């Protein structure tokens, strides 16, 4: 189950001089309970692709199946689809509009026609989930800090109880601490709510630590779709696409070239340090 993408293409401004082919014959699957990183340089088509997944854009060619059904088929309930495939846009704080945080988060559930009580319940649960306690509920969303606004906006999508949650560059424009907070929050949500998460980003360092599958896009094509360590093996090719592998991989590659038999498939700093220590022999142990 989950989402299945069958050979989709998409062209902007068809038939004019400004025609742009944003997606070029993409096929892939997004299974249940998976944490996927969607990586690509600016303009690689990743934002276009995620807007396809919840039916906001219609592919000019190809089909998208959700739980086995064509989402552009006759009589398909796309409103319900948008609740099941939640999409958090870039800078989601720009969509806040209500007088207080709680009612803003209730906007999505209300559109689903749920009872007022159910909406309130879902909204407060989602706000707790993103780490915003009751003291925020009656605040104006415009009085929050940047990071808080973003978390409130994520709660707004979470409150619809999506089966798949897509986040388009959720860390854009945040400082390092805000970035770690949001990423930590997302991976915690993944563990607690057992849903599929698609994290769109252009930074490998952001996603490498959390995801179990990476999809790399370049010029509207899906270039790699594999587990992180396999994808990072191609770090030279990634560089020609304006991307890079996480920094630790470069250090490990460098050490290996210099004759230290370290493991080059590590993804975070701690395991890199362990691997280096192991190679240094007894002299290096005990000092970490």
């Amino acid at each position: 189950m989950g989402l299945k993408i069958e050979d989709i293409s998409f062209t902007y401004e068809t038939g004019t001089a400004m025609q742009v082919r944003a997606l070029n014959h993409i096929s892939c699957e997004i299974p249940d309970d998976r944490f996927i990183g969607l990586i690509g340089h600016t303009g690689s088509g990743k934002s276009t692709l995620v807007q396809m997944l919840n039916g906001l854009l219609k592919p000019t060619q190809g089909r998208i199946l959700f739980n086995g059904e064509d989402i552009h088929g006759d009589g398909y309930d796309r409103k319900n689809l948008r609740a099941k495939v939640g999409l958090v846009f870039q800078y989601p704080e720009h969509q806040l509009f209500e007088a207080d945080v709680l009612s803003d988060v209730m906007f999505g559930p209300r559109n689903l026609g749920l009872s007022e009580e159910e909406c309130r319940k879902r909204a407060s649960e989602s706000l707790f989930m993103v780490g915003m306690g009751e003291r925020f509920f009656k605040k104006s969303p415009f009085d929050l800090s940047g990071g808080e606004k973003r978390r409130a906006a994520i709660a707004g999508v979470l409150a619809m109880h999506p089966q798949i949650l897509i986040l388009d560059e959720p860390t854009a424009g945040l400082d390092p601490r805000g970035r770690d907070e949001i990423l930590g929050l997302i991976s915690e949500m993944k563990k607690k709510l057992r849903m599929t998460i698609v994290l769109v980003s252009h930074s490998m360092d952001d996603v490498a630590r959390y995801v179990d599958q990476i999809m790399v896009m370049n010029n509207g094509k899906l270039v790699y779709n594999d587990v992180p360590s396999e994808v990072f093996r191609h770090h030279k090719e990634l560089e020609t696409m304006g991307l890079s592998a996480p920094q630790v991989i470069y250090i490990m590659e460098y050490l290996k070239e210099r004759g230290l038999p370290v493991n080059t498939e590590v993804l975070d700093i701690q395991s890199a340090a362990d691997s280096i220590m192991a190679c240094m022999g007894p002299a290096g142990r005990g000092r970490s």
Partner: protein
Amino acid sequence: MFENITIGQYYQTRSPLHSLDPRVKLTGTLLYIISLFIVNCAAGYLLAALFLVCMIRLSHVPFRYIVRGMRAILFLLAITMLFNMFLTPGQVLWQAGPLHLTREGLTFAVKMAFRLTFLILGSSLMTLTTTPTQLTDAMESLMRPLKVLHVPVHEIAMMMSIALRFIPILMEEADKIMKAQMARCAEFDSKHLMKKIKSMVPLLVPLFVSAFRRANDLAMAMEARCYRGGEGRTRMNPLIYRTRDWIAYGVVFGFMAAAIALRVFSASLPFPLNL
């Protein structure tokens, strides 16, 4: 969703009309519109049509592209024609209940329709061949004499060019917010009027907030570059009249003179031309 608006758009190409001084185009369009209301006989309309066709050919803008913008005002045109046809007193040609179709009404309606069509085509030709920046520069330059009367000419022109510049940005922003709210299951295509108005709130509030934020940022950026109004401000591309601009003025005034002449002598023209 806003792709189909062509009125007021710029069409990028190279043509004699594109390279004219914007002041000539602005004055020329104004004089053309005035001439449209001077002419009153078939010969005059023919002349106006001929002039317009020549200008469109000179502009290198595809004819179909210009006409596409006309579709938006077709409804307005039809209403004007209907009112003129049935509400002008005169010799009755056809009658149904309280409605009288008169001979005078019919001629007047046809003339009015031509006038309106030419007016819209003429002014959209100006915006198609002139960038908004050029247009506001021309306005500022042409309105400069009003400074004597303490009219803040530069400020008005600056506000206009900023407003024009922000139209595409705000449209893009509106599109983004709309999509973000649709991702939260909002519906914007409701048939019910009250629901439709209500559904605009989640779009308009963030749009206003973002417009104010952008205005604030822009003011800061201008301040940071020491902007302090038009006093002593020079231009990157100063407007200078060249030979072709004087020729263009000559053509426009020639056209206007012909239009006046046709009106004065309209009675002595042979049959179909004097209608």
